[in-house]
């Protein structure tokens, strides 16, 4: 590796991409759960 280059960056890259995918997946799951609940309560009330 040439001088002056930050080494060992892949662990940070993997961490950043993993957190991104995990957080977005959890958010989509949360939307899906709330969507089902909202549809159910609307159906029950109508």
């Amino acid at each position: 590796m040439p001088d002056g280059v930050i080494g060992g960056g892949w662990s940070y890259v993997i961490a950043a991409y993993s957190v991104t995918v995990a957080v977005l997946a959890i958010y989509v799951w949360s939307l899906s759960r709330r969507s089902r609940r909202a549809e159910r309560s609307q159906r029950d009330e109508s």
Partner: protein
Amino acid sequence: MNIRKLLVLAGLGLAAVGTYFGLFVAPPERHMGDVQRIMYVHVPSAWIAMLLYTLAFGFAIALLWSGRQKWDDLMVGAIEVGVVLNALLLVQGSLWGRATWGVWWDWDVRLTTSLVMAILFAGVLVLRRMAPNEERRSQWSAVATVVAFIDVPLVYFCVRWWRSLHQIQSSPDTVDPAMVLPLRLNSFGLLFLALAWMLWRAAIERSSRRASEVPLPTRVAIEESAHA
């Protein structure tokens, strides 16, 4: 196929190709090496979060102007997805900062204004839960959104206006084309996904409001017919 599904499919496709190019095709940066690949998720998160906050600001103005609830639904959708991306932006930036600056966090002007932006817009979502009724909830959150939006241009321009650890914005003219491609693909991919989620969240808000609107008169009618 509805618009949300189209946006999700397009977004996933673009993000998948962009991530492949970002991780495996784009060259490592001259000084930062491979850690610079965080840029391909960090910068799109920042751009799209700020775009969503700008949309939320527009929806808030439209809501205050017209009083129509559809703007409230869209506003809450834009803010919620914006806060998720804003939180991601801070975590990704912290990882990148640890690798390049040697610290997880610094009270630098760009980092601080980005944190304040997340807190302000998360505060709008908290404020909505405290409102006594639907009308107040819409008004309070629209006004709070307009106030919170003041921080968005500050986040963007602070690196030009004040001394900052964070670099100023690059332009495609100064970046290797092999780096621009994954950045653009991921940005458009995340944009499409974020718009789909914003519309989904708005639909949930609409359904919840209708469910809470319907019951009282319906229940009264049912009770009256039962007593008649």
